[in-house]
């Protein structure tokens, strides 16, 4: 079973860009790409703007979608219908924002989290509101055990860093959807992902290195093993047990919380006392001179 592809739209995202990219990702090539986002998690504060932008982008797109023979169209329409019906069955509160013959946008409320685990090939965009970055990280992590196939994050770079670090996905893209990956199958698992090269040559070849020159450490060890004298052994041990050159770290910490309070109060008290005392001494001295 293929893992799902997720997308996150944060409050700090550029909504137009996010809508444009995600509509392209979901509905290009009839929405069958494994990298088309299965679930789009949108921050509740920007969800309405995002859905409006998506509807606008879909309108632009359906102008450009080609018409073709009736067989394929019927198959596609049934795929869309089946998926929308399945979503509505699993979540009665789901709201269908847009449903056309070849695309649909559904707003999922999903009290039951397991709805979000399923992967689908139909060109249906499923949107789910989230409360915060931590909420979506918990949601994605809690609904599947294997890493997501890909994740698209739309936010400012700092949040993008946080999301890409903690949402486990084989490849993450921040603020854009790499169009090259929408063509063709998913990248081979377990190998590095370079969007420009789908199948690197290393995939089909086995490493068979051959060495003709002995490395320096090999020479050293060979000498040591063949000499069998105490001097070599003790030299090696001395080198091994030389102290570690530890990196100097700053002590950190700084002034503690309670120490700060103490020092501030002490400072205030002392300043007040000293200034009052000195002024009163000065004043008394003057008065005493006057009294005498």
């Amino acid at each position, binding site marked *: 079973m293929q893992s799902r592809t997720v997308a996150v739209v944060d409050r700090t995202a550029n909504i137009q860009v996010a809508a444009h990219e995600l509509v392209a990702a979901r509905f290009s090539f009839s929405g069958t790409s494994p990298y088309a986002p299965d679930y789009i998690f949108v921050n509740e504060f920007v969800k309405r703007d995002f859905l409006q932008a998506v509807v606008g982008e879909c309108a632009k797109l359906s102008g450009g979608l*080609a018409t*073709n023979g009736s067989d394929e169209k019927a198959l596609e329409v049934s795929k869309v219908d089946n998926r929308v019906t399945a979503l509505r069955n699993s979540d009665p509160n789901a709201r269908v924002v847009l449903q056309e013959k070849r695309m649909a946008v559904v707003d999922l409320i999903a009290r039951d989290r397991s709805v979000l685990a399923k992967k689908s090939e139909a060109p249906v965009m499923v949107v789910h509101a989230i409360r915060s970055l931590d909420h979506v990280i918990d949601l994605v992590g809690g609904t599947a055990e294997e890493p997501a196939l890909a994740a698209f994050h739309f936010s400012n770079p700092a949040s993008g860093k946080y999301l890409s670090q903690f949402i486990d996905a084989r490849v993450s893209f921040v603020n854009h959807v790499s169009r*090259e990956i929408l*063509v063709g199958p998913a990248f081979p698992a377990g190998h590095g992902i370079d969007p420009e090269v789908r199948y690197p040559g290393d*995939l089909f070849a086995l490493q068979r290195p051959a060495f003709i*020159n002995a490395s320096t450490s090999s020479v050293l060890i060979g000498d040591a093993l063949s000499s069998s004298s105490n001097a070599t052994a003790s030299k090696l041990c001395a080198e091994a047990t030389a102290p570690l050159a530890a990196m100097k770290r700053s002590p950190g910490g700084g002034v503690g919380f309670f120490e700060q309070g103490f020092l501030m109060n002490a400072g205030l008290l002392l300043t007040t006392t000293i200034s009052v005392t000195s002024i009163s001494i000065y004043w008394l001295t003057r008065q005493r001179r006057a009294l005498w």
Partner: protein
Amino acid sequence: MDDTFSQIRAAAIDGRAINIFYRQKQLEQLCNALIKRSPEIREAIAADYGHSPTEIAVELHSALQSVKRDYESLRPDEEHKREYLIAAGKDARSVKKLAGIVYVQPCTHTLFYSVIVPLSAAIAAGNCVIVLVSNTQPLVTDDRILTKSLSWRTTCGTYRPFYGKSSHLRWTGTLSPSPKTLLKTRPYYTQPSS
């Protein structure tokens, strides 16, 4: 089918595809055949998938650029030098042995791309390739075009198409080049992985 499989095994054991000039020639012929047939391919994709003309063009472009890039990665002079590193007294850290036989099971999304790109990458690495192209999908036109492009060579057993038992295509995103199993046992294609 048995005959074809044993021919492929023979080709793999011979190491026919290791020769870099042979690989170059194969890729040249593949590329030229695809270029020659590209109008038919585009029509077939349009008929089977209903993608827009730009999407078809993108798929064609990505696939052919991939083939051309694999072709350009074949450099006979460097390959020769790499082969003779040990003879020249230098360490050969990055010498590779090819996998032998690569079995490609494409996915239904953008079938053309998912057949051509791993095929050319595997050939460029010097392997013999078995491509599973099923008859029972509703993509017969595409298959015929593909097999026509691939079977221009009749002399070498590596590209003869065979129509085996029907097995409906399941999606796999990964390839499974397991050379040992394929060379030792009868290489019937395995159940589609789910």
